[in-house]
């Protein structure tokens, strides 16, 4: 008898397990069919899933949730927007994983550097092909910013906001050393060497901080020294990444590093804001977000800003920023309305109030933008350049970091490292 009960119990357990595994799709037919009907019955309410990386507590997120989305929903009855905030790095990985399982959102705000990678996966909509009024919408946005969404002849998103990096310097330290804010690359090198040393507490200080060795960090120096990464068509690297000017820029940074004038790039070192705020780093290249961070954490710090120091190639910083794209699985009509709204004058001006540099040409002319903290960046934007918009960029960026690290650590000469890199890049660009 006991045995029988035991067997029955065990069978029940297994049955329950199997039932709980298998019943989910079968027992919930209502939502499944509702979702399936949505595109065919336009009168029904549509919910757009929008993923972004405005941080959850930021002013941008407040504006998005409390001003922009309510306004969009009011203007477009029948369309709801469900906005989800992610960490920057998480968003990239979550999108990759969602693509694997076919659970992508409709629309996402993407770091412009991710566009080539997602385009290669065939999950982004080529807007110029699908949207008949694309040209008139894109015509309202800055060409330089729109170039980040362009691959080949197609556009895989609309520029949403743009940014670049400018030079921050510690006013007091420069005045004490009797040097002017560096305007040329030679001035910059001299300033970094002069400013480095030890402070009153015996702590090491650095003339300049660079927290990494990827394209975002190196490109301003390479371009301003007259170097290039690839040919203009982005098909060949040899003769560009290993040119005399590029090698010279890398060697210049390596010399500064070896003389302890600039910091290393260890993730555990003092974070940029704190290093700059406490006077351990005396110069840095940073984006518009740093103004608000410094005002919050080090309100008494006296600092100035200047354009990227000009070298033989001029003064060129690196273009950053975000694009807004829709995925192939999206409800395209509703998503297109939302994309237009987010790049329209109203949304762009509201976001400009939170420190986001707009890309809408009309918004650029408003008083909000002219009086904004980010005004110095707007001057730097016309000369800022975009990193290569090729699918292999993530891999190329990693190779660049590896090669330059070897130069910094004195394992290879700059010329040898860049020659090897050029061969690797040629192969990647040919794919």
């Amino acid at each position, binding site marked *: 008898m006991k*045995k029988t009960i*035991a*067997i029955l119990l*065990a*069978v029940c*357990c*297994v049955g329950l*397990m199997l039932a709980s595994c298998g019943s989910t799709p079968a027992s919930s037919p209502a939502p499944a069919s509702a979702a399936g009907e949505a595109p065919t019955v336009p009168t029904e309410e549509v919910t757009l899933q929008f993923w972004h990386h405005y941080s959850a507590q930021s002013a941008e997120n407040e504006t998005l949730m409390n001003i922009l989305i309510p306004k969009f929903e009011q203007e477009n009855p029948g369309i709801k927007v469900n906005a989800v905030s992610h960490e920057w790095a998480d968003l990239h*990985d979550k999108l*990759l994983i969602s*693509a*694997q399982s076919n659970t992508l959102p409709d629309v996402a705000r993407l770091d412009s550097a991710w566009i080539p*990678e997602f385009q*290669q*996966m*065939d999950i982004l909509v080529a807007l110029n092909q699908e949207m008949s009024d694309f040209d008139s919408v894109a015509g309202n946005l800055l060409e330089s910013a729109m170039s980040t969404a362009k691959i080949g002849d197609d556009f895989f998103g609309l520029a949403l906001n743009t940014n670049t990096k400018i030079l921050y310097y510690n006013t007091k330290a420069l005045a004490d050393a009797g040097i002017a804010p560096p305007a040329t690359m030679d001035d910059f090198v001299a300033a970094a060497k002069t400013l480095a040393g030890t402070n009153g507490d*015996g*702590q*090491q200080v650095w003339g300049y901080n660079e927290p990494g060795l990827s394209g975002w960090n190196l490109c301003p120096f390479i371009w301003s020294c007259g170097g290039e990464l690839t040919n203009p068509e982005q098909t060949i690297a040899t003769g560009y990444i290993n040119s005399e000017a590029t090698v010279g820029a890398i060697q210049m940074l390596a010399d500064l590093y070896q003389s*302890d004038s600039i910091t*290393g*790039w*260890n*993730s*555990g*070192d*003092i974070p940029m804001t704190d290093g700059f705020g406490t006077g351990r780093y005396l110069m840095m290249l940073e984006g518009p977000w740093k103004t608000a961070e410094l005002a919050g954490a080090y309100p008494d710090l006296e600092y100035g800003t200047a354009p990227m120091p000009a070298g033989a190639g001029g003064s060129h910083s690196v273009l950053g920023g975000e694009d807004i794209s829709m995925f192939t699985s999206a409800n395209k009509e509703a998503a297109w309305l939302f994309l237009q709204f987010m790049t329209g004058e109203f949304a762009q001006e509201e976001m400009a109030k939170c420190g986001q540099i707009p890309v809408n040409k009309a918004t650029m002319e408003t008083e909000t933008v002219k009086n904004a903290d980010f005004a110095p960046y707007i001057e730097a934007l016309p000369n800022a350049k975009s990193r290569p918009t090729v*699918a292999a960029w*993530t*891999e190329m960026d*990693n190779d660049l*970091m*590896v090669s330059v*690290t*070897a130069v910094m*650590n004195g394992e290879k000469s700059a010329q040898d490292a860049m020659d090897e890199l050029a061969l690797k890049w040629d192969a990647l660009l040919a794919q």
Partner: protein
Amino acid sequence: MKIGTNANRLRVASLLLPGLLIFGAFTVYPILKLLVMSFFEWDFGSMFNQTFIGLANYQEVIQDEYFQIAFQNTIIYTLVTVPGQMVIGLLVAALINSIKRFRVGFRVIYYLPVITSWVIASLIFRYVFNTEGLLNYLLNNILSLTSSNVRWLDSRWGGMIVAMVLGIWKGIGWNMVVFLAALQSVPNELYESAEIDGANVLQRFFRITLPSIRGTILFALVMLTIGGFNVFTSIKMITGGAPAHQTETLLTWMYYKAFSTGKFGYSAALSFIMALTLGLLAVLQFRLMQSDKAGDAL
């Protein structure tokens, strides 16, 4: 009798079934799926139409210079940390075994690192060895032994040594507990008669203690070798593979390839290469210990 046996079998089967189902769904199936993936070009670029490429992933892994660095690093990590933990663990166990008082206290102290979270211990090690860290503060500002901060974590061997020190520090306690249990099972009579025969402390240790706990040593060796190959958290948290992937180990490199570059086929092949290596090592270790035993018996 027969009916009883059948009923018994049914009962055993029904009791085993839930466990087997879970094991099958969450262990066997993923392994088989992984094996299939390792023969396909399976990355973000070809997610929806994978192509069969035979052994190309395996070839790519073996020829990859970063894999070779990661493989060397893993081997060195294992070669250093496994004997390191075992020797110190055995020494501590022998010392604790020989004292009469405070045994529990010492056991607790040595076991504490084992129950500390890997992430937290790794972060603390990172802050200690950072260029702006505690060790540099001590050397530079307090003792004035160095003129500027040393970049401990900015080189391949610096980063690896810190991770290895952490691995040994964290593993001593586990070895101590395992060896202490083994030491307590060695019959006291053996030591007494050896003492009468005039054997000194070292002779007793090498002639009696070590042979008596051979089984435990083999167990610890196999477990720790697997553990050494699985090093991940400490490397990920302390160096993150920097500088320039010079401190990657097999698992951190696999993780990087899969989740940062989307090369799932490559990572699947890498995991099978790693499993094969571990299997071979385990067989080798068992053989060695057995032949050693046979030699002793002669």
